């Protein structure tokens, strides 16, 4: 058969196929232009369109029914609270309200709504809009997951739980069109910060009512053609898993200072994909630079690379209800034996800061005095006191973390540290995210990874976690003095006294060690050099109205 086939004029056949292939390739090139083309970023720079890699598809744009960061990123462009925050000084600056006063005891706030505040459909924004919005936010049937943020307002919690039926008893009142009065339950020094949070944004209730009952979740009012907001931008397109487009709102009070014309948010779940899109010039910026790429951008001193401390802590939880972790000596021994400096230097390598206590240092003047030290000798002693000298007889405990390479590296390093320094063998177990959350919530674990990013810059957001039976305690740990100190701090109207209570509470936490703080988070981002006005922020928040684009001058 071989011989037979040789009789074919093979060369003719090959030429025929070759011709087909070449024609196809040429056609493809003609169609796409096989040359360096203008990227989306180049075009965006000329037309003032910002392209953002957003970490996930958004569930909704209604701030009362969503909680995620991707949603938050979009909501900050669509709405504006009473007060904004200066990204550098972190001081409040006028937003919808152009001025405000605070009573001496810090419990009554009066806001003057600016006369030119408008909704994106041209309606005037008045004080009553805030009253109606917060009424909605606290309606039980809406099941707003941010509702507890409003509990700082007097009687808000009672209204939410149904103890009070009449909303007029809640401490928020429109004195007239322009003036809003808010009574707080306690002196809350971080209240102005909360007002810049998406849970406190005003919503256009008339639009919501057009598409359903006021306390109905997820109606059509958030679709692009129906949406009304009060922010610098307005929703223009929302195609699931593809793009969310927002356009500059002509009715925004400060529109003359908004330089971007449009922002396009792309849901890019994978950090690796996001970084690739950035390199190919398809997005200006995105959430998180993959860990393994950090060194590359750092070493070549890429102007796009930004690293900055964040208000968040990575830590391990003990299940304090089970043996041997019900013994504080064991918990202390395990915590004291961890070399966190070496962990951030050799394992995480993203510029993280070793953490010796739960609360990260903060610019408002609170830094914990108490610490959980790195002290090997003491650790060994404590473990021996607990009856496990040199780790003999210590049960094989399981360390649980959610499936992610970064967490695994840390877990392996810590497993090694305990083995070397204390002679303790632990087992590692990883679980898919939702399974992990469920097991953590129900305390079906022995040791587990955890993290917390502060909701506002105040020690309260961290120390609140570990009050007895707190929804996010999840360690089974409880201490009556600690609870009292947190309560006292909430009732105190003197800042230094308040911080002193927090100091004492944190000292108890560091003595009792229900958790082992490992490091303070840092943000690692790429922001295209053509994006101007970007400021690093402790909570990684930014304000789109301050951003503008300048075509890059190539070096």
């Amino acid at each position, binding site marked *: 058969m071989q011989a037979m086939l040789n009789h074919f004029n093979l060369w003719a056949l090959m030429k025929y196929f070759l011709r087909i292939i070449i024609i196809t390739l040429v056609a493809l090139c003609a169609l796409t232009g096989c040359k360096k083309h203008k990227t989306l970023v180049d075009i965006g720079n000329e037309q003032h369109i910002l392209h953002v890699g957003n970490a996930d598809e958004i569930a909704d744009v209604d701030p009362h029914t969503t909680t995620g960061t991707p949603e938050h990123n979009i909501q900050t462009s669509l709405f504006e609270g009473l007060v904004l925050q200066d990204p550098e000084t972190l001081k409040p600056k006028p937003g919808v309200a152009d001025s405000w006063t605070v009573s001496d005891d810090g419990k009554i706030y009066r806001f003057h709504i600016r006369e030119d505040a408008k909704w994106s459909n041209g309606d005037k924004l008045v004080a009553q809009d805030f009253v109606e919005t917060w009424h909605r936010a606290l309606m039980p049937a809406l099941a707003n997951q941010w509702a507890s943020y409003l509990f700082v307002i007097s009687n808000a919690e009672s209204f939410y739980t149904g103890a009070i039926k009449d909303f007029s008893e809640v401490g928020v009142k429109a004195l007239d069109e322009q003036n809003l009065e808010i009574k707080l339950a306690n002196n809350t020094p971080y209240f102005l910060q909360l007002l810049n949070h998406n849970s406190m944004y005003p919503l256009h209730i008339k639009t919501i009512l057009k598409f359903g009952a006021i306390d109905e979740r997820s109606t059509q009012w958030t679709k692009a053609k129906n949406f009304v907001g009060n922010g610098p931008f307005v929703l223009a397109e929302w195609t699931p898993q593809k793009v969310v487009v927002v356009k500059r709102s002509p009715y925004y009070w400060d529109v003359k200072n908004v330089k971007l014309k449009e922002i396009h948010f792309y849901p890019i779940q994978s950090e690796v994909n996001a970084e690739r899109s950035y390199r190919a010039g*398809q997005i200006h910026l995105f959430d998180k630079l993959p860990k393994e790429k950090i060194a590359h951008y750092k070493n070549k001193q890429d102007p796009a690379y930004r690293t900055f401390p964040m208000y968040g802590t990575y830590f391990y939880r003990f299940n304090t209800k089970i043996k041997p972790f019900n013994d504080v000596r064991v918990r202390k021994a395990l915590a004291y034996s961890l070399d966190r400096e070496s962990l951030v230097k050799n394992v995480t390598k993203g510029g993280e800061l070793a953490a010796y206590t739960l609360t990260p240092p903060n610019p408002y003047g609170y830094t914990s005095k108490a610490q959980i030290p790195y002290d090997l000798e003491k650790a060994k002693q404590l473990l021996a006191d607990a009856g496990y000298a040199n780790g003999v007889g210590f049960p094989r405990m399981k360390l649980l973390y959610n499936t992610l390479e970064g967490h695994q590296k840390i877990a392996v390093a810590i497993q090694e540290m305990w083995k070397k320094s204390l002679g303790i063998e632990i087992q590692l177990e990883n679980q898919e995210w939702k399974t992990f959350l469920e097991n953590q919530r129900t305390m079906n674990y022995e040791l587990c990874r955890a993290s917390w990013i502060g909701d506002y810059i105040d020690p309260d957001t961290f120390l609140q976690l570990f009050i007895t039976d707190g929804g996010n305690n999840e360690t089974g740990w409880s201490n009556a003095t600690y609870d009292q100190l947190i309560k006292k701090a909430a009732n105190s109207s003197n800042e230094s006294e308040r911080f002193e209570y927090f100091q004492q509470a944190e000292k108890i936490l560091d003595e009792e060690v229900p958790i082992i703080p490992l490091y303070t988070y840092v943000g690692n981002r790429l922001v295209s050099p053509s994006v101007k006005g970007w400021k690093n922020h402790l909570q990684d928040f930014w304000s789109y109205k301050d951003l503008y684009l300048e075509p890059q001058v190539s070096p």
Partner: protein
Amino acid sequence: MFLFILKRVFQSIPVLFLVIAVTFFMVHAAPGGPFSQERNVPPEVVKKLNQRYHLDEPVMQQLFSYVGDLLRGDFGPSFKYPTHTVNDLIIAGFPTTFELALYATLFALTVGLIAGVVASLRPNSAQDYIPMSGAMLGICLPSFVLGPLLLLIFGIWLEWLPVAGWGQIPGDKILPSITLGASYAAYIARISRGGMLEVLSQDYIRTARAKGLSPIRIVFVHALRGGITPVISFLGPAIAGLLAGSFVVETIFQIPGLGRFYVQAAFNRDYTMILGCTIFFAFLIIVFNLLSDVILVYLNPKLRQQVSGGH
């Protein structure tokens, strides 16, 4: 023939119901729920949410009301993206997935057939080994390796083609189609080579050559028709596989297709979306398998006789 199809359709109904029931219990048995998140909210809120979405009812009751809605063609609202119904999301995502699968199939057929035919003309020579090694590589190289590799070369180094998107920038459909189609091209190459080898040794090819016909005419008009029959029977399940298996490619290239929705739904515990996609894909697979069976019966007189003969 009609009876045969009818029988097959009736056979597939219990299969679909089994798929629904098994998936339903599996998603509800998975730990965590659509509303579990890192920061826990007060228990009253969780209770309200569960009430709102009927998650506090017994699972059997939930299953019955789900199947009831399903019979009316309603997949229900998505848990994670509650302003969209699952129907809307499937309608939004499927055309993209279908288009991707279509281009991938076209790529697979073109490249696969050319390689297979070229190889079959000179078996056990370089002309055979080179395309066949390529095919072996194509089968072994999974799309999550091939995709990023192509992206690196054509997207980042050469800057010829975009690295993400679908229909946003000209040319962004090329790399995903090639990535998805590559392994199928490899299979088609191997199958068509086998088919061609068999046909080329037949007497009628010798006759055709003896009559002095041009090689192109012999290969394309006489041999190819018989040689690619096995490819056709491969295509039915292959297209179903391309549709249901496109999620890796959709994730790599940021394509807003149904496969990506499906995988995300599993991570999000979006019960209705998981079920909707599973049922939809199960339905597609059943339909494509039925179609390829019907075509096979139609092409093969022996089978046709069996079918019309009853038993």
